[in-house]
C-alpha cells in the first residue's frame, strides 16, 4: 500500500533534483534539516530513527544530499524522510517533512476489531510487513 504522509505524498516521488530544490528552500529560511528512517510507517509511529543529528548552520543542500545518500546506502529498503525545523520561536518547530525514499514493496496495514464491554468495539491498526 502506498503510504501517504508528510508533504508531497500524493505526488509522484520526488527525484534528487526536486529534493535538492526543496532543501535549498528550507535552508534559505534558516531551517535545520534532519534525516529520519524507519521500517514501520504506522501513522502513530512518531519516533523514527534519526540518521545523525539534525544539521544546523548549513548553507548549501549538498551537505544534506551527502548524508541522504549515506542513509540510503545503509537503509536501502526503509522509509526515509527529511524534516525541517524552524527555531524562530525559540524551540525547534517542524515546518515541513516529506518522504524521500520508500521500500520497493510497502507494508500493508491490517485492522483488528475487538468486542469489549457489551457490544462496543475497539479498533487496532497494525503494520503487516510484506
Amino acid at each position, binding site marked *: 500500500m502506498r503510504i501517504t504522509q508528510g508533504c508531497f505524498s500524493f505526488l509522484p516521488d520526488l527525484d534528487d533534483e526536486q529534493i535538492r530544490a526543496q532543501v535549498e528552500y528550507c535552508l534559505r529560511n534558516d531551517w535545520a534539516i534532519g534525516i529520519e528512517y524507519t521500517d514501520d510507517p504506522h501513522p502513530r509511529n512518531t519516533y523514527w530513527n534519526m540518521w*545523525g543529528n539534525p*544539521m544546523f*548552520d*548549513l*548553507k*548549501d*543542500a*549538498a*551537505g*544534506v544530499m*551527502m*548524508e541522504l545518500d549515506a542513509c540510503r546506502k545503509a537503509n536501502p529498503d526503509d522509509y526515509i524522510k527529511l524534516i525541517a525545523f524552524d527555531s524562530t520561536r525559540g524551540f525547534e518547530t517542524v515546518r515541513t517533512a516529506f518522504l524521500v525514499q520508500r521500500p520497493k514493496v510497502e507494508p500493508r496495514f491490517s485492522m483488528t476489531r475487538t468486542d469489549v464491554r457489551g457490544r462496543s468495539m475497539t479498533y487496532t491498526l497494525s503494520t503487516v510487513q510484506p
Partner: protein
Amino acid sequence: MSEAAVLPAETPEKINLAEDFETSGVAAILRELDEELIGLAPVKQRIRETAALLLVDRARKKLGLAHDTPTLHMSFTGNPGVGKTTVALKMAGLLHRLGYIRKGHLVSVTRDDLVGQYIGHTAPKTREVLKKAMGGVLFIDEAYYLYKPDNERDYGQEAIEILLQVMENHRDDLVVILAGYADRMDQFFASNPGFRSRIAHHIEFPDYTDAELLRIAESMLKHNEYSFDPGGQEAMRAYIAARRALPHFANARSIRNALDRARLRQANRLFEAGAPVDAQALSTLTRADIEASRVFAGGLAHERQAG
C-alpha cells in the same frame, strides 16, 4: 547525430572576455584586493591568473568546447600575519562570482574543529564541518596539526582521510584551502602525498617589507580615524625595524597590536596632561606614544635574558 545538434541552441560565436571580466564582478573583487591589501604582489598575481583561467574556462563552456571543472583546492603558505585569512575571504567571493561555488561563504576551522577526542568522534565532527562548508570555501588554518607523525593512534589521520575523500568526490561542492607556515606545510605535504596531488594551487605569501608595514600601520590608523604626526611616523618606522628583529614577529598582526598599545599610551598621556583636548589631539599618535614601547628596550624582560 550531427555536431550542430549537440551544441546548445544559442551558441554565441564570440565572447568578450574583458566585458565578462567586468560584468561577472570579478574585476570589482580584484580591484578591492588591490586597494585593501598592501604589498603581496606575487599573491595578487596568482589570484589574477587563477581568475583569468576560470574566466577562459567559463567562456570555453559557453562555446561548447571541452572543459572539465578545474581543481580549485589551494594551499596558502606564509608567516603569521601576512593576510592568509583575508585573502581566503576574498577568494571565496571571487569563486562565487565566477560561479564555481554556489554560496560563497568561508568556514574557517583548525584542528580542534575537525578532530575528535575519542574513538568514533572524529568522523561525525569532520563531516559536520564539511557539510557546513559545502557551497563555499573551507579554510583550514595550520593544517599541519592534523597530522602528528609521532603518534600513530592520533585521530588526525581519520580526519585527513575523510577530507581527502570529500575533496575528490565533492569537487563541485566545496573548495578547500589549507594554510600554514611554509616549512611545516612542506613537511605536511611530504608525509601526505594525497594532499599534494589534490591541491593544484600553491600560493606563497611573502613577508611584508618595512615600507609596506608602515603603510599598513597608516591604513589601520586611518580606518579608526587616527593618524601619526611626523615624529610619530618616524618612531613607527624605527619600531618596525626593531620589532622585526625580535622573536614572535607576526607581520601585520604585530603592527596591529603595537598600534593598540600606542593608543593606550596616547589615552593615558592625554588623561594625565589634564588639559582640554580637541579632535586633533584625540586622533594623533606622537613620537612619545610609540617610543615608550618595550621593543626599543630590546624586547620583554625574559626575552632579553634569554637572548
